[in-house]
């Protein structure tokens, strides 16, 4: 059988969606999907989805050891092995948020210069208080998305990592000044009530002299107003696999280690800012 051999690592709905996307795309062949801890054999490239931060680092390290080309969701800043893997050019990072078509569209429009003079980018990523998503991983995902959309280097960053309604960290707030003066404001919060009508809520708004580009990829709902008052259900989430796969393959095609390392360095500076309570220059 011919076609490019794709292996997958991961779990859950993100992996299932990715597997579907590989199967449906002409020219690709799914050669195996495994849980983190092993590499699928016989793959030209491996794409990961649905991994916790620590797992992202260990698969990246494994790829480095075996010379495997791997696309992985953004690595956490806290582990040295990630740095090496990214420097090698074998491992590239892809934000799972690129699975959302409106966010890809927003990034493309920003790249095309539709904003005119750029002002800022605001992004809020909220999910349920009892969601399995660690807030640190979600923050890495959002940061990576924002930097990719804006394609400019952060020069000054400030962050707060807080436990606002639980015992553990449940929110990140970050402000980044980019080289081109764009100001980026990011909020990640496990804020939505458990069992509420929305499992996830995302808002990204890029502002500029000529346009405001606003994406709310999860805002689709069935609202019913009846005897029981108003109820709102969000019974489905958009299928993320296709867009994520496309972004991963494009990145693997043209790895850019300096860019990957800049993302990691920015994340590190944000952790340092959060720990020390002051802004960091990069």
């Amino acid at each position, binding site marked *: 059988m011919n076609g490019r051999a794709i292996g997958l690592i991961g779990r859950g709905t993100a992996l299932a969606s990715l597997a579907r996307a590989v199967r449906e795309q002409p020219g690709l062949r799914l050669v195996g999907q495994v849980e983190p801890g092993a590499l699928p054999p016989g793959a030209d490239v491996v794409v990961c989805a649905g991994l916790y931060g620590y797992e992202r680092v260990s698969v990246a390290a494994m790829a480095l050891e075996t010379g495997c080309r791997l696309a992985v969701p953004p690595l956490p800043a806290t582990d040295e092995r990630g740095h090496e893997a990214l420097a090698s050019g074998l491992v590239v990072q892809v934000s799972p948020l690129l699975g959302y078509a409106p966010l890809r569209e927003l990034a493309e429009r920003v790249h095309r210069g539709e904003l005119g003079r750029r002002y800022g980018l605001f992004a*809020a990523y909220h999910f349920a208080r009892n969601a399995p998503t660690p807030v640190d991983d979600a923050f890495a995902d959002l940061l990576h998305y924002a930097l990719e959309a804006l394609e400019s280097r952060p020069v000054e960053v400030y962050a707060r990592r807080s436990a*606002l309604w639980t015992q553990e960290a449940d929110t990140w707030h970050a402000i980044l000044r980019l080289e081109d003066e764009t100001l980026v404001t990011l909020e990640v919060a496990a804020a939505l009530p458990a069992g509420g009508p929305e499992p996830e809520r995302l808002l990204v708004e890029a502002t500029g002299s000529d346009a405001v580009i606003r994406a709310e990829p999860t805002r689709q709902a069935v609202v019913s107003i009846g005897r029981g008052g108003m109820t709102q259900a969000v019974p489905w989430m958009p299928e993320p696999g296709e867009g994520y796969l496309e972004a991963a393959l494009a990145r693997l095609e043209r790895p850019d280690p300096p860019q990957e390392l800049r993302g990691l360095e920015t994340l590190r500076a944000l952790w340092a800012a959060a720990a020390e309570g002051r802004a960091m220059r990069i």
Partner: protein
Amino acid sequence: MRRLRVGLIGTGTIAQSAHLPAIRRLADELELVAVADVRAEVAADAARRYGAEAWYTDYRELIARPDIDLVDICTPEFLHCEQAVAAAEAGKHVLCEKPMASTLEEADAMIAAARRNGVKLMIGHSRRFTRRYREVARLIREGAVGEVRLVRENERRPRAMYGRLDLPVGHWTPEGGRPWLASSAYSQGAALTNAVHETDLARWFTGQEAVSIYAAARITDPAGEVPDFLTYVITFAGGALAVAEIVNQLPADYPYYHMLEVVGTEGLIRAADPPMSPLEVWRPDGMAYPLNFGHLLHVDDAYRDEIAAFVRCVREDRDPPLDPWDARQALALSIAAVRSSQLGQPVLLASLEAQGEGA
């Protein structure tokens, strides 16, 4: 019941878009006696439109009138202290636009003058009188979301926002140059111009005093001299956070809107404008919101309610519903935001007080 007699200083944008119409709506309780503005033609026109018997170019003449009970100050903030103190010394009650002043020393002088002269002083933080925010405050008070831990309000304004209102007057342009709001000689920019609303809401909704603020600002208007874009994170004494991103120079026709989220230990509250845009027009070249200003924040009612509340407290000799101290603390946060954005580091509110750095 005798109507209270009011004199209004500064017949510019906020006066003509909100205060003067609100005073007219309160005609049963209030009589507009005189107005003052350094722009003679603007003062004369406002007096004619709103039925004031006199107009002045020197506000001191207005204050000197013995028949005025209360003064409504709608001038730029660098004038608030001088004019409020003068009015208080003349025994007039003072309603003054936000931000309270341009420094903390001035704000303190205003509070002291009101106390010394036994007159009421209230700062017009209009959002405290806006139905939406009052409803949010009520829900919080009733415990709907538990303890408030995060308050975020983003504010978006199109360029030349007030141009849409078709007012007979534009912003004051001292020396015929740029509008005072965009000039570093008169304004400190978005932190005081708009973010003082957000700093006030954050204190109101968390019920806490702030410890520190980190802010980043920039000038996006090529003709501007002061920041018109601001983003910040405030940390409160109890650990709660408040966040805001304020953008003032968006394309014309972009809706003027606010997006509030309050997250508590038990739930969250959202109050945002875009889904409530009362009129949207879709055309091949895009979307327009021809009616998005004024309606969404119930601006007219807010100012009517604000002025009516002040009138009531004067009549009944009660404390104003918004203590000047609250306005002073919101100003402290806004000044700290300016400082922080200049330093590139968080600023402790305590250090601002210790250094007496209101200037």
